[in-house]
């Protein structure tokens, strides 16, 4: 019974199916807002679903001399990681008791899994452009992990809790962390990190469509590409949710407004900035963003 409940949680309600549908709708919001910002009409609401349906029916080509299991398995690993993060975050949002010691740390680690999967798959595909893209993705992870961990540490030190349930509970009692100096600085740093984790425009350096075609995913086709796009779409749903849980007080009556505000911020940053070069991105993350996150951390130690 317990295991059936776990399977249901993971595959259907707060897990895979729910996050996939919500994530695809979130990417539609992204594409539609982008279109409206460019004075276009934009795609209909079912566009991301049509993309996935089409990709699932197409041929999968595995390039010559490529390890089949690694090439096709890597996207699945990424998808599994994203689904697990979504399940954990939703379970704790719906019921504060469903939390365990250190689930924040588990979520932080699982969130690197999609990037790792893309690096592994890209490196396995024997394409020079994919190799460039994979190495850029690695540098990007090096760049954003430090401010990301500092921002999460700020939350941990303010709330004195390692459990997502207790973090939400603390914010229910004392107001969202966003409305304090340290919380605001950590939120700003985490927002840029999430932009990079999504591979959204100023930081879409690994996938730079115009210079290295599609980077690590250049050799993927058919269902494997659908899995990659689906896990990217689910991140569009899960990462703003993660920010909401950490800084804006989690799931309550205002949740849709908070979620859409974070998503809109991400889309606006995406549409008003040109792509950075990889060295500029490193300088940006290790400079201003890390300094902001470190300042927030020091303020958190002082209890501000």
């Amino acid at each position, binding site marked *: 019974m317990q295991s059936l409940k776990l399977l249901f949680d993971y595959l259907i309600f707060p897990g895979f199916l729910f996050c996939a549908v919500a994530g695809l709708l979130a990417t539609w919001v992204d594409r539609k807002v982008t279109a409206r910002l460019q004075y276009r009409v934009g795609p209909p609401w*079912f566009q991301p679903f049509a993309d996935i349906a089409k*990709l699932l*029916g*197409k041929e999968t080509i595995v390039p010559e001399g490529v390890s089949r299991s690694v090439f096709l398995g890597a996207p699945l690993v990424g998808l599994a990681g994203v689904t697990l993060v979504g399940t954990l975050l939703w379970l704790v949002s719906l019921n504060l008791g469903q939390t365990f010691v250190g689930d924040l740390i588990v979520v932080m680690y699982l969130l690197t899994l999609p990037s790792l999967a893309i690096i592994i798959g890209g490196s396995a595909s024997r394409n020079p452009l994919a190799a460039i893209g994979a190495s850029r993705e690695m540098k990007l992870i090096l760049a954003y992990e430090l401010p990301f961990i500092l921002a999460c540490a700020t939350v941990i030190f303010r709330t004195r809790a390692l459990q997502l349930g207790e973090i939400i509970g603390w914010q229910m009692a004392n107001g969202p962390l966003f409305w304090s100096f340290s919380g605001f600085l950590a939120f700003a740093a985490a927002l840029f990190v999430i932009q990079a984790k999504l591979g959204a425009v100023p930081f879409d350096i690994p996938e730079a469509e*115009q210079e290295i075609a599609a980077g690590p995913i250049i050799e993927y*086709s058919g269902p494997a590409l659908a899995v990659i796009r689906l896990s990217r779409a689910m991140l569009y749903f899960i990462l703003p949710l993660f920010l909401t849980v950490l800084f804006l007080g989690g799931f309550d009556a205002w949740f849709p407004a908070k979620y859409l505000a974070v998503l809109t911020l991400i889309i606006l940053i995406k549409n008003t900035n040109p792509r950075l070069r990889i060295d500029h991105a490193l300088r940006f993350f290790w400079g201003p963003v890390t300094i902001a996150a470190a300042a927030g951390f020091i303020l958190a130690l002082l209890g501000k």
Partner: protein
Amino acid sequence: MLKNIFKWGLKKSLWVYHAGAAACNNCDIEILDMLTPRHDVERFGVMLVGSPRHADVLLVTGVCNRQTAPRLKRLYEQVPKPCLVIAIGSCACSGHFFRDSYNYVSPIDQIIPVDVYLPGCPPKPEAMIDAVIKAVGKIR
């Protein structure tokens, strides 16, 4: 049932790959015109992709000469099937006034299967959108 869902997806989301087979760049510029916000092809789910592995539609431009013919064939083999091919411009359809040239091979429909022909020198972006939508009708 699954087949119908896939066909619906294919009709609603055609990703185009721009395959230039030695064109004079006139058709290529018009293709870029078609992809600008003014014409907004994303309404029909049409999107430009950078890799032939992601493509559903090949937009082939140009006079196919001895250099490009084998490469065009290889490119077609790299695209996951099913895929559609649109020959854009008079050169791709028939060779136009290069057909007596010493290095001209053949119209591209003798190298790869072509679904829609779009003559014009160059065709207008509106005509290209029409061609892509007509290509949708070829999906069975």
